[in-house]
C-alpha cells in the first residue's frame, strides 16, 4: 500500500537539520556526548588539570591512585616514574588527540572527497588512474606507510597529521567514489546536465548533497582512526616532541614500571579507548540513521 505509507497528503518536510537530529539513534547520542566531552576537556585543560603536565615531583614518584593505600589526594590517579601527575597528563594529552583527530580527518576528507568526485564523475582514464593509485595505497599496511612517511617528513605533530592525511585519504576516496558513481548514474544527474548544468555545478548541487551524509559518517570514523595512529606514532617516539604529552608517550613511559604502577598505563589506554569508542559509536549511529531512512524511502517508492 504505497500511498498510505508516505502519504501524498503528508506534512511538508520540516527543517532538515531538526529532522536529522530527531532520527539519531541512542548509539549516536552516546558517541556524540563522548566526543563533545573530549573536546571540552581538551579546551578546558588548564582549568581541569590539578597540575601542570610536566611538573615533576621527584619525592612522589609512582604513587598509586588516590583510592589506594598509599594514595595522595593531590594526585588523583597517581604519578609516573618522574613524579608527574597522571590525571593532568591524561587531560593535556586529550589536546593532542583532539587536534590530530580533527585536523587529520578534515585533511583526509578534503583530499579524499575531491579525488573521489573527480574519479567518480569523470570516469574514464581519470577514474582508472585514481582508482589504481587508491588500490595500491590501500593494500599496503597503513602503519608501515605512515612510518615511512614519518622518516621522510621528520617527527612532530604536524607531520603526524600530514602523514595521516596522506595515508588515509584513500579510505575516503574509495568509499565516496563508489557512492558518487551510483549517484552519477541516476537520471536526475543526467537531467541536470541536459538542462544545461555545467560539470562543476552538477557536482556541487546534485552529487555532493547526495553523498554528504556518507562523508559525515566517514569523517567521524576517521577521527577515531587518527587518534589510534597518533597514539601508535607517539608510542614509538615519532610524534610529539620531548616536552609535549600525548597518550602514546604515556604508554611508552609506563612500560618500564608496569609491575609497580599499572595504572600509569591503564589510564592512557582507557582514554584512547573512550575517545575512539565515541567516534565509532557516533559514526556507526550516523550511518544507521541515514541508511535505513534511505532504504525505507526507497521501499516506499518501489
Amino acid at each position, binding site marked *: *500500500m504505497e500511498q*498510505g505509507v508516505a*502519504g501524498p497528503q503528508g506534512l511538508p*518536510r520540516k527543517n532538515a537539520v531538526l529532522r536529522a537530529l530527531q532520527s539519531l539513534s541512542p548509539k549516536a547520542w552516546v558517541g556524540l556526548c563522548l566526543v563533545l566531552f573530549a573536546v571540552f576537556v581538551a579546551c578546558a585543560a588548564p582549568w581541569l588539570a590539578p597540575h601542570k603536565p610536566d611538573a615533576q615531583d621527584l619525592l612522589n614518584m609512582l604513587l598509586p591512585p588516590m583510592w589506594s593505600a598509599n594514595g595522595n589526594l593531590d594526585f588523583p590517579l597517581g604519578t609516573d616514574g618522574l613524579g608527574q601527575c597522571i590525571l593532568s597528563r591524561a587531560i593535556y594529552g586529550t589536546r593532542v588527540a583532539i587536534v590530530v583527530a580533527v585536523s587529520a580527518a578534515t585533511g583526509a576528507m578534503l583530499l579524499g572527497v575531491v579525488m573521489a568526485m573527480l574519479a567518480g564523475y569523470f570516469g574514464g582514464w581519470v577514474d582508472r588512474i585514481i582508482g589504481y593509485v587508491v588500490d595500491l595505497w590501500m593494500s599496503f599496511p597503513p602503519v608501515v606507510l605512515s612510518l615511512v612517511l614519518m622518516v621522510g617528513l621528520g617527527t612532530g605533530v604536524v607531520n603526524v597529521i600530514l602523514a595521516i592525511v596522506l595515508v588515509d585519504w584513500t579510505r575516503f576516496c574509495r568509499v565516496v567514489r563508489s557512492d558518487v558513481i551510483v549517484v552519477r548514474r541516476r537520471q536526475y544527474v543526467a*537531467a541536470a546536465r541536459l538542462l544545461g548544468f555545467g560539470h562543476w555545478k552538477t557536482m556541487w*548541487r546534485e552529487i555532493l548533497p*547526495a553523498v554528504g551524509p556518507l562523508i559525515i559518517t566517514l569523517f567521524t570514523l576517521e577521527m577515531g582512526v587518527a587518534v589510534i595512529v597518533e597514539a601508535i606514532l607517539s608510542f614509538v617516539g615519532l610524534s610529539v616532541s620531548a616536552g609535549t604529552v600525548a597518550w602514546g608517550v604515556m604508554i611508552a613511559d609506563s612500560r618500564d614500571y608496569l609491575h609497580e604502577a599499572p595504572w600509569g598505563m591503564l589510564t592512557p589506554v582507557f582514554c584512547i579507548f573512550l575517545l575512539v569508542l565515541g567516534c565509532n559509536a557516533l559514526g556507526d549511529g550516523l550511518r544507521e540513521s541515514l541508511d535505513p531512512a534511505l532504504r525505507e524511502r526507497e521501499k516506499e517508492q518501489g
Partner: protein
Amino acid sequence: MIRFEHVSLSARRASGQVDLLRDISFTVPQGRILGLVGESGAGKSMVGRLIAGLLPEGFRITQGHIFLGDTELTGMPPAQRAALLGRKLVFIPQEPLTALNPLMTIGESFAEQLEIIGMARPRRHAEMLRRLEEMELPQPAEILQRYPHQLSGGQCQRVLIAMAFAAEPALIVADEPTTALDVVTQANVMRILARRQKANGTSIILITHDLVMASHVCDEMVVLYAGEVVESGDARTILAQPLHPYTQSLSGSTPKLAGEAKRLPTLEGFMPGLGDLAVIAGCRFQERCGIGDARCGQRRIELQQMDGGRAVRCLKVGVPLGDAAGSVAADTQGHGEQRAGQADDSPLLRVRNLSLTYRSSGGLFSWGSRANKALDDVSFEVYRGECVGIVGESGSGKSSIARSIVGMHGECEGAIDVDGISVIGARGEALEQLRRTVQIIFQDPHSALNPRRSVFRLLTQGFEALPPRARHEMAAQLEGKVAELMGDIRLPPSMLGRYPSEMSGGQKQRVNIGRGVFLAPKLLVADEIVSGLDMSVQAQILNLLKELAARYGIAVVLISHDLAVVRYLCQRVVVMYEGRAVEQGPVDEVFLRPRHEYTRRLLAAVPSGDPGKPWPVAV
C-alpha cells in the same frame, strides 16, 4: 480447488486495527484459471501471501476461512502450512532472473526442488529434461548446466514454470509472471503456461494489473480495489460489460489497440492507502466515483450476486457512468487529428543515418573489445506540433535514439538536426540554444527527480542553468511562471514545498513533465514515461501530455514498448528492432496493415481485448 470465504486481513497501525483486505470471497474451481486483477496497492500480492501463509509482522486474519480442497488453511499450524509450499501450493515469481540462487546452476536448483517433492534421485535428471522440453526450451541439457544470469528473462521464467508444474500441485499462484518481460516473450510464456495448465488440469490464480491480458487468458476474474473485491465473474464478460464503476473506469482508461479511438476518461485521485482506510466507513471507491451518493458512504456494502455467476459490490449497478466517469476537461485535440502548423513543412527534428556502436572494453589486460551496434542507420523526421512514437522491445535501441536526440551520446554517427541546429558536436551558443529547444523526460520519476529538491526547485531547475543575463531577465516573472506551470500540470500550489519522497508516482511524473516544459521547448522526448504507472495514473499522464503539447505547440517523440499508448497519443510511429527502424508511417496504417514481419509479430503479441482475436498465439 481454493476457496476464500469472507476473509479479512488486518494490520496494526498507530490508529488501531485497519482492514487491509476486507471480505474477500472467491472460488477457483478445479482446473480453471482465475485472474486477480488490481492496481498497485489494491492488495493482490497480499492475497498471494495469505495463501502462502507468509504474512509480515503485525498482520493477521480477523475473519473468514480459506480452503484448499477440503483442508482449511486458516488456523493450520505453521509447520503443516509450510509443508504445503512447493508441493501442493506453488508460486511463480515476478522477477525471474533474481528468483533463483545465483550460485547454483539451474540443474542444481531444479534438483533441489525435485528433492523437496520427494522424487527419487535417479529419476530426477530425466524428469528435469522432460519438463524443460515441455516448456519449448531448446537444448534443455545445456540449460541445466547454466547459471541463472546466463539465461534470458523469458528462459528463466519458463524454468520456473517447469519447476512449478513438476510438483503437480493443486494450485499455482502466478504473481505478475510476465510483467518484467518483453511483449513478445510475454506472449510466448503465457501461451506455454496456458497450454500446460490445460494439459495438467491445474488450478491457477493469475495475479496481474493487466485487465486486458487477464480477460484473454483467465476463465474467471476478480477485480480488487483497496483491499476489497469489487467485481467478479466470467473474465470476458467483465471486460465487455463491466458493472462496477471502478472496473468501468479501469477498462476505459486502458488504451487499446483495436476499437474506437476515443479520449481516455481519467480517474482523478488515487487509491486510499492504509492510513486512509481506517476512516472510510462505506464504499472505498466512493471518493473517485462519479455516481456515488450519501447512502454509499454510510456503511459496508455487501457483494451482490447477479445473473450469470457475476457479483458486484455496488449500490448503483445499472446507473450509467457516462461523462461522470472522472473529470474530463474540455477536449481539445483528439487522436488522429491533423498536425498543427502545416504551412511550415520543414521538419523540426531530422534524424539521418543515425548509428551508435557501444564498445565494451574487457578490462586492463584484455585484448580486443566487443562492439555492440545499438543503432544501425536509423532515419526519420518529426514535424512541428506532431507526435511520433518509437516502439520496440528492450534492446531495440529506442532509448538510445531518445538519448542521442538530446545529445547524451556524443559518439554517435550520422546526423541529428533540431530546428536546423546539429545536435552532434554542438557546443557553446548552439548547445545553449539546443537546450531551450529540446528537452527529455525520463522514465523513472523516482530516479529522475533529485530527492533533495523541493517541487519548486525542481520545476525551476532549468532556470538555474541559464546564463546570468537570461536569468536576470527571467527572475522577476519566475513565480508567476511557476504558478502557471503548476496549473498546467494540475498540481495544487500547496505542493510547491513538497519533496519527491512525499509524492505519489503520478505526481512525480507530472513534476517531471513540468520541469521539461518549463523552458518552453519545441520538442519533447518522452522516454517510457508511463511504464510502471498504474493504468488510471497512466491515463492522467497521457492526457496531460496531450494537452500540454496541443496548448504550447510542442512536438513529442514518445518512446514506448506499449503499442496501445502510442496509438492513443501519436500520429506516426517508427518500429525498432535490433537497432534498425524496420517500419514507419501513420499509426493506423502501420498497426492495421503492417508490412514488416517483425511488426506483425509485435502486433500479434499484444492482447487486444477483442475476444474475437485469440491471444496468446505463437509468435
